[in-house]
């Protein structure tokens, strides 16, 4: 199995969720993160002191999938998360050795 990790713009979550649903992927875990990259940050001023803010709000979406689905999922995310503007994010794919569903103890693909 694979663990697909996508860093996306917060405003794209809904699109991504729907794209995955249409692939029959009905599970994911989302984390609020701060991203640093090509996309420039901004600066804030309080009482004259200026702060350069390098990190921008992003969402990290993690989806465990069967090997067979991995590519389809990546593609679906890329299409649904893309705005074409800098800062759209990345998709990382890791190898996933084992999965367990806590409720039932099921393991492997059937646990997804």
């Amino acid at each position, binding site marked *: 199995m694979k663990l697909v990790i996508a860093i996306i713009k917060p405003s794209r979550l809904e699109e991504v969720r729907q794209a995955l649903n249409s692939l029959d992927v009905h599970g994911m875990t989302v984390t609020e993160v701060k991203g640093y990259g090509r996309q420039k940050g901004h600066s*804030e*001023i*309080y*009482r*004259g*002191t200026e*702060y350069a803010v390098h990190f921008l709000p992003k969402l990290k979406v993690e989806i465990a999938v069967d090997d067979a689905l991995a590519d389809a999922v990546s593609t679906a995310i890329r299409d649904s998360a893309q705005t074409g503007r800098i800062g759209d994010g990345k998709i990382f794919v890791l190898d996933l050795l084992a999965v367990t569903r806590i409720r039932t103890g099921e393991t492997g693909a059937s646990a997804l």
Partner: protein
Amino acid sequence: MKMSKVLGSAAIASLLLALPAFAQDAAAPAAEAAAEVATIDTGDTAWMIVSTLLVILMTIPGVALFYGGLVRAKNILSVITQVFGAFAVIALLWVAYGYSLAFSGPTEGGLSAFIGDFSNFFLANVTPDSVSGTIPELVFVVFQLTFACITATLVVGGIAERMKFGAVIAFLAIWFTFAYLPIAHMVWSGAGLFFNMGALDFAGGTVVHINSGVAALVAAIVLGPRLGYLKEPIAPHNLVFTYIGACLLWVGWFGFNAGSALGANGLAAQAFLNTITAPAAAAIAWAVGEKITRGHASALGFVSGAVAGLVAITPAAGFAGTFGSIVLGAVTGFVCLWAVVTLKPMLKYDDSLDVFGIHGVGGIVGAIGTAIVAAPSLGGFGAEDYNLGGQLVTQILAVAVAIVWSAVVALVAMLIVKAIFGGARVSESSESDGLDLSSHGERAYNS
């Protein structure tokens, strides 16, 4: 003594002999009170009771929130607790000896120009039926109590995020005793030095704002900057709290300024109006200044400007005409913006929350500006024979004395506190963990 107390309490009223129109009504109380059978005016009393609680509202939660929102989330409880603790301690000290030292004592001779005596120790001789002007003396006692308390709490902004809790309280107690009380006596007591110099300070620009601003600056310098100051960002953690605090300061300030008319009358009304116009003009001035220099008018800018304007109008509230108050406010808005944005970085001191930049500088501009806006020729309510030049000198003199006095006492107080507490600062690790956890064993926010 009674006599001097009455004068003391009627100090401001007396100043108004200046004001043609309602001089009589305003000054009357003093005379009356002095007479054998003094009676109170329930309307004046109602307004003064309300004014008193308004100044308390300014302090808790006003000052606490205004400051608390500006610090990092790990230090907010420490700031608001310092404000709360200082309020409680100074309130008791005021009742114990503060009122007596500020407003009692002989009308002349000895130290009477600088400080009162202990004849009202623990409010001895002040009963529910003692009268001061047209109100119960006890109302005057609590009204003045709130001034002492808020002045002390304002200083907290200068030493925020790094000082030991006990040290903060001890420092404020010492400073209150040796700086606040004498200066309050000098300005408001019938026997006071500035009072007899004819210095104009309607609601305490010198006593409250210059005084606290200077003390905060000195304390901040002695203490040294916060860890990471000017290196890492130290952004306000909740500007909504700061905004609420600023609004409560403004609302409470009506008790502070209009309340200083010591009655519900036309003078109070003028002071009330000026307490709207000056901060409004200052807020706009600060915001415009930001827009021009930085491209954005900020929320923090608007409220900082308003507070600066409130500070500046304080000594002039009953003397300035409507137009004068607007001009004074606008000027102060620009000057304080400069003090905070340009002066402070230049001098590199870490007055955490700009107590000096806003209360100190704003107070000085206001105290000196009072001499100008009070001029009848400029729509002010100064005396008929008003001498602008002379008044200017008097004001500057009073300001200078206050600055030096407050600075010296603050310096000595800090050194004493350092000695007692083995350093006034918390440890580095305590500071980086945050004072909420290290000094108070709590965190403000949990899920």
